[in-house]
């Protein structure tokens, strides 16, 4: 994630510095207005905190460890603008003093991690946490997911910066001058590493820290939770069957009307498979729905190859053991809803586990 010197062209680096500069200026101005004389010690300590957090290696899958950047935590505790400055300063010290990340690529690293990471993590946190109480488990999930999405968006930005290099900068023989991989390689490579390792570290540290603060010092979470509901004991029946009954009934009704989709003919636009591109009737439908632009005469080889990578257990919402298409749709809706509910139950139990284990010892 920390891009070293030599991977990006000087002009890309200059553009990234120019892209980051307005955010730094706005962040610094906002910080001065909010904290005034407290700005220097607060930002210094928060930058030092972000730096140290980046050194915490967390065990993730198998025997691997990964470290978080702390963008989720920093933006939840400090707000997105202070987080931009704190992470930028931590990155500068890492680049200059510890050689982690390049000096010429410092603008790009700040743009990816401090700016895109902090702003997106904060947006996700606010969107998911909503007006929930400070001690609500929803805030744990919100911070964890905010950090996870933030670091993955940062990685995506980094991958795009890497991926455009070979197309823009190469010598007369065609050899790339800087990062050698095109977007088709850089994006999957970066995202695979961040979705599976670094993102998990960010998710774990974000969720764990908010769970800890909810028990130990909930006041710290109030700065970025304007409108949070008062922390009152929630009655046991508040989220029981009575409250949720209309939602369950609505969900059941929606499942029953899913076969309405069968009324539509042809494939959804952009969801064509290789067999659709081979079938003359479907080809006509595709051309008609694409402003009379005909699809390619032969199935693109990449599409052909990738379409066989994964075979869905229930293709086209039609389980093989059912003869009726309508019944197949309803069964698929029930199965899909069940999977989502199971995923949320597992997530809920993980959050409860965090909350219970991170209770501070007196």
């Amino acid at each position, binding site marked *: 994630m920390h891009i070293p010197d030599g991977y990006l062209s000087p002009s890309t680096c200059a553009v990234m510095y120019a892209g980051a500069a307005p955010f730094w200026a706005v962040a610094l101005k906002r910080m001065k207005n909010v904290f005034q004389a407290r700005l220097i010690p607060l*930002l210094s300590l928060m*930058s*030092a905190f972000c730096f140290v957090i980046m050194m915490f290696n967390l065990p993730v899958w198998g025997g691997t460890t990964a470290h978080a950047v702390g963008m989720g935590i920093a933006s939840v505790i400090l707000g997105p603008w202070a987080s931009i400055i704190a992470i930028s300063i931590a990155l500068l010290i890492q680049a200059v*003093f510890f050689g982690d990340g*390049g*000096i010429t690529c410092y603008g790009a690293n700040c743009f990816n991690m401090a700016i895109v990471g902090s702003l997106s993590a904060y947006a996700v946190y606010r969107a998911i946490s909503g007006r929930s109480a400070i001690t609500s488990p929803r805030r744990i999930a919100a911070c964890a997911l905010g950090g996870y999405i933030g670091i993955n968006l940062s990685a995506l930005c980094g991958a795009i910066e890497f991926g455009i290099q070979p197309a823009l900068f190469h010598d007369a023989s*065609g050899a790339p001058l800087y990062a050698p991989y095109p977007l088709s390689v850089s994006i999957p490579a970066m995202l695979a590493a961040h979705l599976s390792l670094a993102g998990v570290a960010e998710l774990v540290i974000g969720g764990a820290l908010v769970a800890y603060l909810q028990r*130990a010092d909930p006041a710290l979470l109030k700065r970025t939770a304007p409108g949070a509901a008062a922390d009152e004991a929630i009655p046991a029946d508040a989220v029981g069957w009575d409250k949720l009954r209309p939602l369950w009934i609505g969900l059941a009704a929606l499942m029953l009307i899913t076969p309405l989709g069968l009324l539509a003919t042809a494939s959804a636009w952009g969801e064509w498979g290789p067999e659709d591109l081979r079938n003359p009737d479907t080809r006509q439908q595709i051309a008609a729905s694409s402003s009379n632009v005909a699809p390619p005469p032969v199935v693109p080889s990449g599409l052909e190859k990738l379409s066989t990578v994964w075979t869905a257990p229930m293709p086209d919402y039609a389980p093989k053991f059912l003869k009726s298409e309508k019944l197949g749709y309803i069964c698929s809706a029930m199965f899909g809803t069940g999977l989502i509910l199971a995923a949320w139950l597992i997530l809920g139990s993980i959050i409860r586990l965090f909350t219970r284990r991170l209770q501070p010892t007196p």
Partner: protein
Amino acid sequence: MDSLARTLEHARFCEDAALTQGILQRLDPRVKLCGLLALILVAVSARRLEVTLAVWMLGVALASYSCISIKVLATRTWAGVLAFTGLIALPALFITPGDAVLPHWPITWQGLITALRLIVRAETAATLAGLLVLTTPWTHVLKALRTLRVPTVLVVILGMTYRYIFLLVRLAEEFFEARRSRMIWTLSRPEQRHMAGAAAGVLLNKSLQLSEDVYLAMQSRGFRGEAYTLHDFHMERRDWMAAAGFAVAAALAFWGGFL
């Protein structure tokens, strides 16, 4: 814990190296900062591999005249960069389209040049950046940043951040050590994650408390929100000569790199 200990050790080593009496250590930090930054910039921009290699060799020569051995550069800078960049550059040997190095070999000339260019450029930039830190105390680097028009408030924040990083690293290290010394068995992976989360929480609380204490201490000494830094650098003859040397080297590398 290992990464925390490595940070402290690296900082101590850099402080010691910066106090020796080599050629770069004797120079004005502003000249060093601007000169080494200019060399990094031309090394990164050069389109010819030989030019980047020449700048790297210049960096190695400067290091050896500044009491920094090749062994130190190899272990502290080159090995880490080679491990990371080498891993990234390796597939480029095979997937970059071009002319095969040998018949029936999957490696292409273009791939080889791309991989070499990436590694040499990253090593050169890391060597020059490492030279700055190994030959200049951090406080002087910060003061020299003022010559690049970095706002004073940021320079002060950087200085304080650097100082408190070590305090927080020490705190985290003690936290983990205290926990480890009370254990007779290794923690499971979920327990390790919980401990890291709790450690981060404690560290955050301490940081915020400390920032309040520091603010009160600053106020009691007359701080009213304005930050100032002392400018006690004086350019001497050798500094002017070094500045001219850096300028000539950077200009030559720039000219050669784009021929």
